[in-house]
């Protein structure tokens, strides 16, 4: 931006703050045709009090021209790499085809969440009379749409060669394990504007974001997936802005009125817990699905939540904000989470759109070292039992439907704090019906807003009600196979998208492309 011409007289160059002020806030106005509180009619719904929107600070001060310039630069760099990746068959350089199953989880679980985030911020920007906040939301809405597009584009190369990646939009709507991230975002998008800010901008984009992106992107880097590393870092540069939006919004709201603290703390407690429950999928990915491991879930939680979060809450304590409820439980559960989520997928591999496999001896040594207090005692015996069954041709599948938590919609796989061999369960009676939860955290969320959660679309119940069939299916017809019809509804192709990695089309193809014979196969469980 430096003017190198020397013949013209010196021009006053606006500094960052001046330029930003002129091109953003100074373009805002107080409405006169309609009253402000009618134009911005959601602000009063939650009891939050904002006295002065001008107190909102804009750390990055991006004007639209700067925004588009930098975003265009990122796109140019990204698509150059994606072109090279595709031209050079980069998918052949991954450590092992098992790795692709992490991308299946990502594309079906996270990419649709990015799309929901895009919609959320587009709507949210409309709700704020403060120009700084509105602009930050607008930019984030554009960012999130870019993330959807770049994720689909990057992973599309894998879709040409591996199964389970062809129908992520429908799968996200219908598959049992994907109702967890889906319901998370739908809960957020149907909340008031300030709750949305705390839920997504603060709890997800600030407090928990590193636990989504660092594992997937580092996992990609360690396992030779250049496409994902590149799109990951390309989107992470947007995340830095999202993070500062989150931190600014919480400070701003807490500074505006002391009465806001209790409401904000409540939102933080709820969304920390909901976000944590979605992260179980990441825990499994880190510990069980990466052929070349990055770090354990336990380590990741320690670094990115306990330490980073600790610094953050030290800072925020001046407002009276405390760490979220039940945070200590998440630390204790870090010893168990990944093992339990993985066992959930091992039980129900028949109905999943990705493959699973048993850990190898080497994998188990790693798990033992990372989880010295729990793995050998509670989880190795089960894996060894599964190995025996597989060797006998009696691989264990669970053909039942699982009991799900009414709020987080994860199966009740969590165990009691004092006994990891008993399922943790909470129950409430509400309006003549029983409701069940995996934890105090989820039960508390229900109790605060029961009218919202009684309408949860729980996959297991919907299947039982006969709502999970494609149009035109007749349950009374002869030869009707409920499970087969549910799989069609899921858009999961049996024998192709589901079941074990061993014996899959993905495995056969990979061995053929890499020139492996049965004898020289590099990794077998």
């Amino acid at each position, binding site marked *: 931006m430096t003017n190198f011409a020397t013949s013209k007289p010196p021009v006053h160059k606006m500094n960052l703050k001046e330029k930003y002020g002129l091109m953003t806030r100074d373009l805002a106005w107080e409405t006169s045709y309609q009253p402000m509180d009618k134009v911005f009619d959601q602000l009063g719904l939650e009891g939050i009090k904002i006295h002065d929107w001008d107190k909102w600070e804009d*750390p*990055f001060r991006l004007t639209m021209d700067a925004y588009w310039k930098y975003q265009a630069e*990122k796109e140019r760099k990204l698509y150059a790499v994606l072109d090279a990746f595709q031209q050079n068959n980069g998918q052949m350089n991954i450590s092992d085809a098992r790795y692709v199953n992490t991308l299946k989880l990502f594309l079906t679980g996270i990419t649709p969440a990015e799309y929901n985030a895009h919609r959320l911020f587009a709507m949210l920007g409309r709700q704020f009379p403060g120009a700084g906040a509105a602009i930050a939301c607008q930019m984030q809405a554009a960012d999130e749409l870019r993330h959807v597009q770049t994720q689909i584009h990057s992973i599309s190369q894998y879709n040409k060669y591996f199964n389970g990646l062809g129908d992520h939009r429908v799968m996200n709507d219908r598959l049992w394990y994907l109702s967890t991230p889906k319901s998370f975002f739908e809960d957020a998008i149907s909340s008031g504007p300030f709750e949305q800010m705390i839920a997504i901008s603060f709890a997800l984009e600030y407090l928990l974001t590193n636990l989504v992106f660092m594992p997937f992107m580092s996992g990609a880097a360690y396992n030779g997936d250049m496409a994902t590393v590149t799109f990951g870092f390309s989107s992470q540069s947007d995340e*830095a802005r999202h993070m500062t939006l989150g931190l600014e919004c919480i400070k701003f709201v807490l500074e505006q009125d002391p009465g806001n603290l209790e409401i904000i703390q409540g939102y933080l407690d709820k969304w920390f817990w909901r976000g944590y429950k979605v992260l179980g999928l990441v825990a499994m990915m880190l510990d069980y699905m990466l052929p070349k491991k990055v770090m354990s879930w336990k380590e990741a939680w320690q670094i990115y939540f306990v330490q980073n979060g*600790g610094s953050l809450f030290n800072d925020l*304590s001046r407002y009276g904000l405390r760490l979220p409820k039940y945070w200590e439980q998440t630390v204790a559960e870090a010893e168990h989470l990944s093992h339990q989520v993985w066992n959930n997928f091992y039980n129900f591999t028949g109905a999943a759109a990705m493959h699973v496999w048993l850990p190898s001896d080497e994998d188990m040594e790693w798990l033992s070292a990372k989880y010295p207090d729990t793995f050998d005692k509670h989880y190795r015996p089960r894996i060894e039992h599964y190995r025996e069954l597989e060797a006998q041709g009696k691989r264990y599948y669970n053909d039942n439907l699982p009991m799900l938590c009414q709020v987080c919609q994860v199966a009740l796989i969590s165990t009691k704090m004092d006994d990891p061999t008993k399922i943790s369960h909470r129950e409430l009676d509400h309006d003549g019906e029983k409701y069940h939860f995996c934890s105090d955290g989820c039960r508390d969320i229900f109790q605060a807003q029961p009218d919202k959660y009684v309408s949860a679309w729980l996959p297991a119940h919907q299947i039982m009600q006969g709502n999970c069939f494609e149009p035109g299916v007749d349950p009374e017809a002869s030869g009707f196979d409920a499970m087969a019809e549910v799989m069609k509804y899921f858009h999961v192709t049996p024998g192709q998208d589901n079941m074990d990695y061993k014996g899959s089309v993905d495995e056969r193809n990979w061995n053929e492309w890499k020139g492996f014979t049965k004898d020289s196969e590099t990794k077998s469980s």
Partner: protein
Amino acid sequence: MSEIQSTVFMALQTNDDTRPIIEALERDNPTAVVNYLPAMVKIDAPGRLVLKRSTVEEIMGMAWDLQSININLISLSGNVEETDDEMILHWNR
């Protein structure tokens, strides 16, 4: 949790653009620690981290737009203050 030290950090992509930025951070923040991870560099500092445009320009030998850090920034931790000349990360306590 108050016994946990308040660390700020900035994580950058590993590429030619960020080399002078990382060097500038090391020069202006003697207590900073630079961690090299796959495809990224994470710079940790106790309490405060400052990036100065003038230092980057001195290293590069040309003009540099501080806002262009947006292209290569991966993640950060701490409150952000940005002017034309400096970007500061800090925790107030």
